[in-house]
């Protein structure tokens, strides 16, 4: 029974060790396998390729694909009766003809995100307070003698009887009462949400600060209880430049959300894009699909990629989270899963759609292009 006690006691160890174990990836062996294949290809192509590289590919730092260290075990998959009833909006199309995209260094963002007390970073404290004051002024709040408060959950915040404007290192949020006759409940219909977003955009145009707004009502997948939910209601600036609009969609979305108790939130991501590592050549969709088929992808699903005929959609986007050390563009493939442990018997006919990410940056610049290793490696 002593061993049984030990087995139970191990269950109480520090959370950090539990998440660390799951997020640690296959290392050397698989990577060596990738290197070996790459070396063979290099030998086969020979000197011609070297010359071609020399003149066609800019000299840029090698990149490491960031690990999803916090959402490591979160599965990105969507339940629906058909893929078409959902909406995964992207401003990108295969005709966008994007040849290069910037890659950003977010090490400062990671440092702030993991800091026990981000306010200990003096500059960040000033920046957060300044961001709050700017929005507060646009909302007509009295900013003459601001009395900031602080909570670990919301960061700094400023309140009056109508608004609360809060700011962390990752995000600025405005909370206020949800106007009557409108809703941001994700279980409302697409049309109701669109109408509400239109109204809020009109009401808060200056605060939202987007010149050519595009309203995005996205997802529309089902919960395990069979309710359809539109979990993204967002606005972004639909500039004409294909790269600009892709960056706006990835990094500068203004999200509208139902915060419960009759409150709504207008949320602004605070990604710092000032540290550009470089403008990297982007591979074609066709090439990305070939990599996907060979197993060079990251995914938060347990099952291996089930085959080309299961691909429902592909988009070019950035995989972003405040704790990613770099922001790298990916081709994101939506795939219909052949079977899933989470296809509930209570929802006959429901299908599951998982996502697989292939780095869109040319593989020459990726130091750790990984083969799927049989784990949840998202």
């Amino acid at each position, binding site marked *: 029974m002593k061993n049984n006690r030990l087995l*139970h006691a191990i269950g109480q*160890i520090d959370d950090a*060790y539990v998440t*660390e174990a799951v997020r640690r990836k296959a290392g050397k062996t698989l990577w060596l396998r990738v290197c070996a294949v790459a070396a063979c290809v290099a030998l086969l192509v020979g000197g011609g390729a070297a010359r071609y590289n020399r003149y066609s590919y800019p000299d840029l730092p090698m990149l490491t694909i960031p690990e999803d260290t916090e959402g490591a075990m979160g*599965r990105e998959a969507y339940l629906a009766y058909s893929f078409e009833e959902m909406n995964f909006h992207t401003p990108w199309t295969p005709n966008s003809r994007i040849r290069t995209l910037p890659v950003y260094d977010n090490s400062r963002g990671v440092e702030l995100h993991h800091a026990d007390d981000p306010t200990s970073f003096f500059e960040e404290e000033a920046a957060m307070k300044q961001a709050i004051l700017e929005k507060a002024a646009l909302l007509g709040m009295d900013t003459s003698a601001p009395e900031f408060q602080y909570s670990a959950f919301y960061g700094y915040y400023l309140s009056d009887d109508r608004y609360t404007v809060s700011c962390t290192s990752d995000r600025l949020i405005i909370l206020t009462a949800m106007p009557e006759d409108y809703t941001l409940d994700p279980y409302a219909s697409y049309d109701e949400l669109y109408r509400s977003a239109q109204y809020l955009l009109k009401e808060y145009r200056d605060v939202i600060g987007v010149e050519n707004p595009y309203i995005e009502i996205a997802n529309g997948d089902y919960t*395990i209880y069979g309710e359809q939910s539109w*979990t993204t209601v967002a606005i972004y600036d639909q500039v004409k430049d294909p790269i600009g609009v892709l960056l706006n969609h990835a990094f500068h979305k203004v999200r509208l959300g139902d915060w419960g108790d009759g409150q709504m939130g207008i949320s602004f991501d605070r990604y710092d894009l000032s540290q550009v590592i470089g403008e990297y050549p982007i591979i074609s969709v066709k090439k990305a699909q070939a990599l996907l088929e060979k197993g060079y992808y990251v995914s938060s699903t347990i099952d291996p990629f089930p085959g080309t005929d299961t691909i429902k959609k592909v988009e070019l986007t950035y995989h972003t989270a405040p704790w990613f050390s770099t922001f790298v563009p990916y081709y994101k493939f939506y795939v219909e899963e052949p079977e899933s442990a989470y296809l509930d018997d209570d929802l006959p006919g429901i299908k599951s759609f998982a996502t697989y990410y292939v780095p869109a940056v040319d593989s020459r610049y990726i130091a750790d292009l990984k083969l799927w290793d049989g784990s949840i490696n998202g």
Partner: protein
Amino acid sequence: MEDSKIVTLYWERSQRAIAETAKKYGAYCYRIAHNILQSREDAEECVNDTYLRTWDAIPPSRPQRLSAFLARITRNLSLNRYEQRHTDKRGHGQIPLLLDELQECVPDSGSPVAEDVLLKDLLDRFLGSLHPRTRSLFVLRYWHAYSLEEIAARQGISRENVAVTLFRTREKLKNFLQEEGVSL
């Protein structure tokens, strides 16, 4: 959905909290339960019970790592169910193997650790002294109940390498507990 938002949903007593938890962490919890129970039906029940326990626990809890919080509940529920199922006989799957292996870590002498919390602290200290890679192997085996083959595939090393590393780590744990003068 971000973890902090899911936790907020629990605090707001919104049913969406469970739906969002299931969506994001259902597969992870199922994997742990299945590793222990080796039965789809039992594993699904444990995952559903995990949601109910979480609903009861938040508030007052506000977990910093929601994934580990859920996983711990699933593990405890699954181990309890395993023990109920196998009170009179040795079960199958990984647990009997884990128990055999952990028997090697039990010190021959020393004063029994009375409090579970002291044992937890000792284990945290021991794990903190290991190389992260070794620690991950240990946690994947004895926390998540992965088979040696699965661990080898995940870590990109051979099964033998996993087995040898775990053997040495068990020896180290036994020595560590002995040096601390404690038994179980």
